[in-house]
């Protein structure tokens, strides 16, 4: 994370000239707002920040932000972001996308991002559906959910992103709600500051295909004030609560980050082909 010295930036300075194509009322507006806010609060330099995404409604994100952006392909935001951060540890790298992107096609990359602990921030806008392709079930859709792709009700179990992230030992795990952009902004800010892989699960409803606003308004509960974010077991308990959707910082742990450690294993020197090729003489 690179911090700038400029004191005057506001949310507006981070907004790009591209108008979001999201439906009116889409939860992603709140997430965008919170992200811009957190960027302003941290005064991230737009020229040294990159927002990486996959494909989906939520993955349109980079186009709406005035930093660098990389709108990649479905499911691959995390490896793109990790490659970027490994090569350019000076940049702030944020990976964003939807539940389909991160938990269906891309879930394998989540596992490995957890194991590597490269310092990137992942913001997943979970609407429990595939928005862009018009409402099929996603891994986070509830069991029994009826959609065009599950006309008899979804037969698979529901994926629990926070619990999985915790069990994979992700070094920063939080959950926010797009309808609470202030708290969300604070979480994203903390996540960006965290050195290591941070995972922010955001409840971000899709009113067009699966309106979960009311349900989440009712279920969303801040984590108890006294929750100790260094206790993974306690965090897991909250994550597994089947009634409540806790929001806040579940877990945080400082661990060495790969892009740093890899630069410490050996003292680099300039490459010279004449020296190098000598080994084959």
């Amino acid at each position, binding site marked *: 994370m690179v911090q*700038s*010295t*400029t004191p*005057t*930036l506001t949310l507006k*300075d*981070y907004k790009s*000239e591209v108008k979001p194509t999201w439906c009116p009322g889409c939860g992603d507006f709140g997430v965008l707002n919170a992200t811009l806010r957190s960027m302003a609060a941290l*005064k*991230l*330099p*737009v*020229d*040294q*920040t*990159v927002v*990486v995404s996959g*494909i989906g409604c939520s993955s*349109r994100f*980079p*186009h709406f932000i*005035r*930093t*660098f*952006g*990389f*709108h*990649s*392909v479905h499911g*691959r935001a*995390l*490896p*793109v*972001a*990790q*490659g*970027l*951060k*490994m*090569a*350019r540890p*000076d*940049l702030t790298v944020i990976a964003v996308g939807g539940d389909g992107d991160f938990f269906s096609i891309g879930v*394998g*990359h989540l*596992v*490995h991002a957890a194991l590597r602990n490269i310092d990137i921030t992942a913001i997943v806008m979970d609407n429990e559906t595939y928005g862009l392709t018009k409402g099929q079930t996603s891994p986070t859709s509830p069991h029994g959910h009826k959609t065009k792709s599950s006309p008899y009700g979804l037969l698979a179990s529901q994926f629990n992103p926070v619990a999985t992230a915790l069990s994979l030992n992700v070094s920063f795990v939080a959950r926010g709600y797009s309808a609470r952009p202030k708290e969300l902004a604070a979480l994203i800010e903390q996540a960006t500051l965290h050195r290591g892989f941070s995972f922010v699960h955001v409840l971000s409803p899709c009113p067009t295909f699966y309106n979960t606003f009311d349900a989440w308004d009712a279920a969303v509960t801040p984590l108890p004030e006294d929750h100790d974010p260094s206790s993974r077991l306690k965090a897991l308990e909250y994550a597994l609560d089947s009634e409540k959707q806790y929001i806040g910082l579940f877990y945080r742990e400082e661990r060495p980050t790969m892009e740093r450690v890899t*630069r410490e*294993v*050996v003292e*680099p*020197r*300039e*490459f*010279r*082909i004449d020296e*190098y*090729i000598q080994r*084959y*003489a």
Partner: protein
Amino acid sequence: MENEVTIRIGGESGEGTISGGDILALASARWGYHVFTFRTFPAEILGGPCMFQVRISDRPVKSMGDYADVLICLNKEAYDRNIRDLRRGGVLVYDPGDFTPESDDFITYAVPFNELARKEVQLFQTKNMVMLGAIAGLFGPPLEALLQVVESRLSKSRKANPVLMEKNRLALDIAYRYVREKIEKRDPYQLSPVEKADRVVLNGNQAVVAGALAAGCGFFAGYPITPASDIMEAMAKELPQVGGTFLQAEDEMAALAAVLGASFGGVRAMTATSGPGFSLMTELIGLASMAELPAVIVDAQRAGPSTGMPTKMEQADLSFALYGGHGDTPRLIVAPANVADCYSLMGLAFNMADRYQMPVIFLTDQSLTARVESVDRSVFQPFTIEGRLEYGKVGSNGANGASSNGSKHEAATALAASFARYAYTASGISPMTIPGPGALPYSATGLEHNEHGHPDYEPEDHTAMMQKRFRKLETAAQELPQPEPYGDSNAEIGLIGWGSTEGAIQEAVDRARAKGYKVASLHLRILSPLPDRALRNFISSVKTIIVPECNYSGQLANLLGARYGLQPIRVNKFGGIPFTAGEILRAIEEVC
């Protein structure tokens, strides 16, 4: 006496067959000879039949040779498997304890390898040293040359110990003396001292790594796969030493995605894989082309389809390299013909990637990855490293708002809005920026977009962007080097080839010309864009065209048909083994 010999060693993997061959090749090269190796791999991880062949010559050698002049059999199975590849009149060296050869199509020398190792040296694992000593005694490479290589190898190994070294020396010596005393030489193969030359000895993958490092590659992400893994392993070791970074990815999609991330960050980045992994990269190659990001992707071709034969060669990924991916997707394709190319073309590939902001597919193949050649040291020059076309950086007075100086960000916003990352240019190449202080941000995207990179589905814009992207290939076709024909300047028969078959083709041309045929060849190192000028000239200069390829479907022939309406004579070999010059010569003779 000929100052050239092709020696094949057949044995069991793990017995030192391969390392023995390696030592022979290296020692011969250091002694001043040109070498060219070919080997097979067993299907088993440990054990299993394998063979190593090295052609040793005082003239440059371009191919593995049609036949072995000398076959050394370390067991009976090696005899059964390899005898058909021994030249009539060649030399068979065998252990009479293993079997008794039956044919008298060849000269036989019996050397009791096992007994010498077991009884005389009293260390069975020196059997391959016994073999080397016999080779030295029979065909000329001096014992000292072999000994030097053995010593320097052993000193780097964990097994290093003086006793073992002493036993090795003994084994070499005993066998040398044995053959000198007991065997009456009846063959013409005797290498005599030649002038030393400044050469290095390495295989294709090692040259690829040297090329990548010399080209300033700063990031590698990959996933293990035969026969590309050793590129990855070398990069894992070397990159941190030159300030670069390495990532072993969870799969090939992650590998290429990470490469694109690094490349977006302005760092030269590459991956290396083989067929199955290359197939998995398809979608991301399309993204690189659409988002116009440089990337170098080494595909070490192996025999397919599917898992196929991981340890066998084939040139059967060309069509896929050309057309892989949905939609019309421009990409650059480079194919090395030999070990020297593996170095030089890597330098070119990285420059091409940056200059044309496009993925470059580097098509080597299994035989080339493992082929050891002696290469003039002068090949390994530093490269001129070209940068990308970067959009004029804004000075540190902070025209870029949120950067170091925030006060002027309105002006910067206007400027940023005018920065057209994907501007329609005459060359097709648009200026880009790289994240960092003062750089104007943009979003790279796989969606169709306008000049500013914003999503845009208007028919006119899609049409114009498609043309712009493909225009880069036209520009490249103008700028990139054109190949020169080889052989008769008034040729009637022309051969067109690509990839690792060049040596066999050129040797066939030489041999055909020696027989009086008017033959020439053109070898393509860049397959996309095609070197149009050279191809048109060559095609129109000859009467008959032959396209020899190690694949079933004639992939280069198909490309030439698509592009020039050419209907060449296709010569296809697809058994997992490279062409010999003789096979191509026969194809030439059939035409005549």
